[in-house]
């Protein structure tokens, strides 16, 4: 078996008496979309925060690209190739779409301590950023401040930034949230192709998208993974049905 890109082992995190993450073990293999689903308050966000380094787990390990990243901070994990998008878009609002992506390109090049060369005249930043914007379909919005983009466009821009980092894995936190049916469909097609670039850990409430995209699904309830399996296995799993899916499946 190929080694997983991301491997979370027995992760535990408590806030007082609440066990937000309770012995969670999941992994992300090359080329797959692994969806993480669960009802509100199941601990999905807390888990994401721990993977990204904004919350420290009480115990357990997180291995990424063959090494333990537990001691690294958010910026260091991003440098290792962990690309993420947020549940609520997180961008530099005053900067144009282009400059947002350029920031990611510059970070990937590992040099933010240039003081004299204007970035807008730096082809090594502008060109790749523009190419990525074209790829996500935002080229004609490149000069607009991120704050003036529509909700869906901001989502696309976040993905563009993750792409610019040439991430080894994508961590997408509810990318479909707030998208119209048309937008969701387009994004589903985009993510479907994206998995060939790097595997995706997809946290999502939109079941149509999850069932269409996921190679594997893990179900998180009260901080515990109650089941992991293929779409069919999860659909027919009785525990999952009572705990979460209800009559949706």
């Amino acid at each position, binding site marked *: 078996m190929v080694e997983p890109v991301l491997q979370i082992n027995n992760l535990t995190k408590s806030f007082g008496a609440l066990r937000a993450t309770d012995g969670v073990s999941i992994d992300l293999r090359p080329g797959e979309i692994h969806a993480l689903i669960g009802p509100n308050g199941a601990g999905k966000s807390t888990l994401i925060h721990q993977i990204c380094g904004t919350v420290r787990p009480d115990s357990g390990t997180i291995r990424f690209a063959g090494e333990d990243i537990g001691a690294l901070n958010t910026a260091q994990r991003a440098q290792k190739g962990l690309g993420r998008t947020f549940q609520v878009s*997180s961008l530099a609002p005053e900067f144009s779409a282009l400059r947002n992506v350029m920031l990611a390109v510059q970070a990937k090049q590992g040099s933010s301590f240039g003081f004299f060369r204007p970035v807008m005249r730096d082809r090594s930043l502008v060109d790749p950023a523009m190419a990525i914007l074209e790829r996500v379909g935002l080229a004609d919005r490149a000069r607009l401040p991120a704050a003036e983009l529509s909700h869906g466009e901001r989502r696309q821009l976040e993905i563009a930034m993750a792409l610019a980092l040439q991430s080894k894995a994508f961590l997408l936190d509810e990318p479909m949230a707030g998208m119209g049916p048309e937008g969701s469909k387009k994004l589903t097609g985009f993510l479907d192709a994206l998995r060939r670039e790097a595997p995706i850990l997809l946290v999502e409430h939109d079941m149509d998208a999850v069932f269409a995209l996921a190679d594997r699904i893990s179900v998180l309830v009260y901080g515990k993974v109650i089941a992991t399996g293929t779409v069919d296995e999860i659909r027919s799993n009785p525990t999952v049905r009572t705990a979460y899916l209800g009559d949706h499946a």
Partner: protein
Amino acid sequence: MLTRENTVNLVLALLLLVAPLAANAFGQPFYVTLATRIAILALAALGLNLALGLGGLVSFGHAAFFGIGGYAAGILSSHALSYEPMIFGLPGTVQMPVIWIVAVVASGLVALAIGAISLRTSGVYFIMITLAFAQMVYYFAISWPAYGGEDGLSIMVRNQFPGANTMKPLSFFLVCYLVLLAGIGLFALIRASRFGAALQAARQNETRVATVGIHPYRIRLTGFVISAMITALAGALYADLNRFVSPSMLSWHMSGELIVLIILGGTGRLFGPLAGAALYVAFEFALGGLTERWQFFLGLILLGVVLFARGGLLGLLAGKAKHG
């Protein structure tokens, strides 16, 4: 291309040059001194604007760096004039370029220490901790008798700049004016650079910066140090303008004044500090002649700016700031 903002900037820069030239021609050196004061305060605020305007770091302690620059000028020249060596037997100097280097290096080192601790906090705590550090420097200066303590230190003869007679008001003004222009040029370069992009992004969204793999702390610390260095350079010039340096340069009033200049002129704007300094000195001069309580009226104006013209003078004249 001459955008509206560039036009406003150009007019401001030319006004600051032409006014003292005219005043000098008409034998009014007082106005030359006034223009020099504007140029120096603008440079000091320009330094703070790098941290505050670009980086969103509301430092309430930049008087510390302004004062360190001032004391660098005062201490070096006093040793040069008395022929007493300083520590390690180093001689003093009356050469401005050497003084500036000492001012910039000394303030940079202090800013590195202050910033390294202060930048672990944010928001109100950052404001308070920078204020606390500046007050420490202030009380240190007061209680250090070797260099005048509370009474301050006079600079008998204004320090020298190669090729200029700095005792002539206009010559000294031109030195200050050129340093200000160089400072503005440096600010513009930094703002447009990779570092500037990271610094401004860290102000807008720290999480975003970390998520692309840039350490906001390192970026901010670097910005804080550069900011302090520019303000210290202004401090050295300010001491030479008054031929006097005292702990009042280090007091929290001074820190507040620098923030006021930036808000009046336009936060984060290239020429905001100059516009703010010009406005401030003009008020001080015009209203100060009418009433001792001119700062009351300045307060009203500041209130008006904060409530109705958030972009300051430049926001009014040149519209909203644009990022490429």
